[in-house]
């Protein structure tokens, strides 16, 4: 009911025609590429579309639609627009601190650890997790599966190369997240980029995976999916939460973004709040 209301508000804001155009565009994109943005938060999608329209100086979504269908390379461009890859290393340091303090002791008890990082974007948080597990001495028995629907960002993630300008923030985050070494142990820098040591990649495997259309591919002890669900409607969030639930082994951990919540999910009863303030939940 609530969700419908929000959509309705959105629709009022966006306008009927524009919404219709967006429907058709998203349908076309789904049929052409298999990427399904139809259940993404409409307001966000519209803003991305409008952004593209502004860049291309196209007045209507329908014109954009035509380009998507007929112009080579445009579809990929749109797909890129829709994938938002905002991330940083040790993003919300408290999360990683809580993970280090509370989840790591639990993980130590396991003979092997599988971590799924869903929607990893350019991989900053994957590297953060790898560093954290390395410092906690768990890296040898851990496999991190880092997935994103956007293969381009995965390529970028595999390189482990991040802009030097962000490294100050990342260093501060690392320190706040309870880093045990000097952050500079993990990278070398030139004038533009910091290159993280490839040894961190030892236990990471990157793969393309679409949370909306693909199903579970393993059973994990930890699933990290931060600031991905915020782009989804409640319905889709529920669907993805279902996927996570299926993919999590009993007593496994689920880490969400700090603005996200499991509170209104259908799966709420199946989790305990493990470190609720830091959005870490544990399957019952």
């Amino acid at each position, binding site marked *: 009911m609530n969700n419908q209301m929000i959509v309705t508000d959105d629709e009022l804001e966006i306008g009927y025609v524009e919404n219709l155009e967006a429907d058709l565009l998203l349908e076309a994109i789904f049929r052409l590429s298999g990427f399904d943005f139809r259940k993404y938060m409409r307001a966000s999608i519209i803003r991305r579309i409008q952004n593209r329209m502004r860049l291309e100086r196209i007045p209507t979504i329908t014109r954009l639609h035509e380009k998507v269908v007929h112009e080579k390379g445009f579809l990929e461009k749109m797909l890129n627009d829709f994938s938002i890859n905002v991330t940083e290393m040790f993003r919300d340091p408290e999360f990683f601190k809580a993970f280090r303090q509370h989840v790591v002791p639990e993980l130590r008890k396991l003979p092997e650890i599988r971590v799924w990082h869903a929607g990893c974007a350019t991989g900053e948080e994957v590297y953060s997790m790898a560093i954290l597990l390395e410092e906690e001495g768990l890296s040898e028995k851990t496999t991190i599966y880092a997935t994103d629907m956007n293969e381009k960002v995965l390529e970028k993630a595999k390189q482990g190369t991040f802009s030097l300008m962000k490294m100050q923030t990342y260093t501060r985050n690392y320190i706040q997240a309870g880093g045990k070494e000097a952050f500079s142990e993990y990278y070398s820098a*030139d*004038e533009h980029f910091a290159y993280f040591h490839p040894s961190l990649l030892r236990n990471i495997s990157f793969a393309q995976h679409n949370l909306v259309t693909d199903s579970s591919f393993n059973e994990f002890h930890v699933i990290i999916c931060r600031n991905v669900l915020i782009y989804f409607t409640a319905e889709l969030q529920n669907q993805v939460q279902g996927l996570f639930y299926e993919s999590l082994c009993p007593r496994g951990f689920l880490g969400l973004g700090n603005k996200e919540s499991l509170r209104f999910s259908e799966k709420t009863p199946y989790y305990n709040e493990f470190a609720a303030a830091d959005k870490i939940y544990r399957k019952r």
Partner: protein
Amino acid sequence: MIGRNRFGIRAKIFAGYLVIILCLVVSILSVNNQIASMQKERNFIINHDIEVHSLTNEIEKQVLDMENGQRGFILTGDESYLKPYDRAADNWESHYNRLSELISDKPTQQKRLADIKTSIQNWIQYTGEPSIQLKRENKDKEVVSFLKEDAGSKSVEQIRSQFDTFRTTEKGLTKERADKLDEQNKFLKTGLYSLLVIVVAVSAFIAFFVSGSILNTIKAVVRSLTAMSSDGDLSQRIHVKTRDEIWELAEATNELLNKIERREWLQSSTNQVVERYQGTSTIKVLGEKFVTGVAHLTGASMGALYVREGNGEKSVFSKKGSFSEPMGEAGRETFKPGEGLVGQCVFEKRILVVEKLPENYQVIGTGLGEVRPRSLLIAPVSNEQEVIAVLELASLEAFTEQHIELIENVTKTFGLTIDSVLGRMEIVRLLKESQAMTEELQAQSEELQTQSEELQMQSEELRMINEQLEQRTLEAEDRSAELQNAKIQLEEKAKQLTLSSRYKSEFLANMSHELRTPLNSILILSEMLAENSSKGLSSEDEEFANVIHSSGQDLLNLINDILDLSKVEAGKLEMHFSEMNMSELPSQLERNFGHIADQKKLKFEIIKERDVPDIFYTDEKRFQQIIKNLLSNAFKFTEEGKVVLHIEKESGVPLVDGADHWLKITVKDTGIGIPKNKHDLIFEAFQQGDGATVRKYGGTGLGLSISLEFVKLLGGRLELESEEGEGSTFTLYIPSLPNGIVPVQEMDEAVSEAAAALSPYIKDENQMMEEPGGNNLPVHEQARADISSFQGKTVLIVDDDYRNIFALKTALENEKMNVITASNGNECLELLQKEQNIDMILMDIMMPVMDGYETMRRIRENEENSRIPIIALTAKAMKSDREKCLEAGATDYISKPLKIEQLFSVMRVWITNK
């Protein structure tokens, strides 16, 4: 009910006592009677017997007295002796009579007494009187004889014995009576004892019976109560057979139990309903559960709950739950306050019960059939004096008081529940909304971040491009200074050329315009002169004027050409697309070029295929100009043979946006042809075959380059096929564009780069995504090749170990940094006061005088120095040291022994934003 056949405890006790008292009274009376009769008996014995005895004795005495008196008198003759005799003779008979009276009930004794009387009278008659008479008569002799005979004493003896017998008998009788009295006494005693026993027995029996009857019923009541309390089963009732107060008590208790049971039912039913809907979070589910619960408990067959939506006049009650939905069209989804009974209920705020529903009232459907409800109940549900929901129930039975009471009960609390559920729903909705909004905000902020990152990446990319350009220049410089210089010069020149070419074009465009104005007047005036309307000129003058005019005309054409070209090159030429009639083209061209062909004795053929559409959309003026240029070119360079113009529809060209068809126009001549190596050249402005050609054929050489530019502007293509001496074929492909085209500006590299620099947002983002990964240079190499960000930066090294300082200094100076050093904290602070431009401090922790922590704290105390990056150099494996460093104000830390690569990396991180 209780009054009838009633035999109360009081009555029982009274009856018991009464019986006992009666017994007592009876026994006392009988005992009393007995005692009285005994008294009488005794009295009788005492009075009668004693009197009998005394009278007997009296009579005997009187007999004796008479004997004595008689004897005395006889003996003495003294009359005085006769006195007792007379008295006795007078009295005995009265005594006798008295005695006879007393013993009248005893005939034997009476007979004896009569005998005694006879004896006495005999004595008196035969002894007494005669003797006395004798004496009186003084017949002593006779008296003596008489005495001698003594008949008298014999009869006295007889009397005496008679009396003895009498007395004995009388004593015997007395004894008999006393015995009888004794007997009676004994009987009385026995009677008394047996009475006592009887009374005790009766009392005991009554006590037993009364107490038993009371106790038994009480016990029965207690038993019932105990059973009830131990079972908790209040459905049982106390049954008392007696009709007494206990029965009343039992009845009252039963009544109480009934009431309790009713209340309990009410309570448990209420609880049942409340339990049903407890914990529900949506009004719909709440409604369903409530209606179902109430319907089950009241035996209703159909029910619905309407909940208010909206406030004030706009409020509408809509169905939020139902039990056995009505079949067919009966039943309403919503109603307004005041509408029908349900609406009326909202106003009245009380329960309405309708019995005897009309025949046509909605029916309750079952699988097998339909029944008509008998009664209807409509109850308001209020919260804070306001009706917020209405419950309607229909039943096949009448609603009982209890049902109504239950409904009153449950609706009382239900209002609050509805309110709280609505509140909860509202809270959940708001929470969800706020969660959604939070997420939305986060999404937006991420989008913004993405956008700003995109912008950053774009500027980064631009910077990269610039830097790479610069880098290439520098590389070239490294390889060869001369080459570098030459390249720079060439680039400079190229830039200058591009610029000057643009300046030239602009200048020409301006100049041509400026030239045309005066030229126009020359042309007009020379034409006027040549016409020689005033006939004031000689024919020679007229010829001069004609020459001036035609030269002017040539000059004007040239200027127009230059103007066009310069406009094209300056990007100022605009195309005006409109409808053009292709059918007129051949005749037009025939008109224009026919005479030239005639002049040069050339054959001019125009072939237009039939499928060429008549309507063609293009800039007609420019289109014709192209054709004319091509034709005049063909005619110009053809000395003999023919010029052929062929117009046909082209289908083999990929359509550009908006083109409805294409034309292929071929101009073929049999002229001098163009050598292969000059093919490109001839389209350049001011170029013809070669210098000789210019001299031979004249002309500016602008025609083809202008045509080429026009063709581009019209969206078409111009191709050349030619061999020297074999004639030339120019093929023009041109689209029909009803809507025109957005002119694609053909800009040279410098212009486009400038454009890119000015508007980074137009750039294709795919390129950006590929950075830096898309760059083919090996990254490290690329890094090395960059200009060092360390260059010219000032770093302050604070360390007490000179070898360390030396090593660091050497390494950093190699990177072209300015290095200043301090060997302890104090020096460091002094240096900081003197030096303003320190970009970074490398701080050793273990130092004499003032250690690193203290130094850093002091540095940070000064507001101006709060932003200088300080890299602390800590000993390895000392986490606490690092934390202390950070607390003291270090920006980052690095462990000793230093690895120079790592140090540089950290320094790059922190120096990058300077």
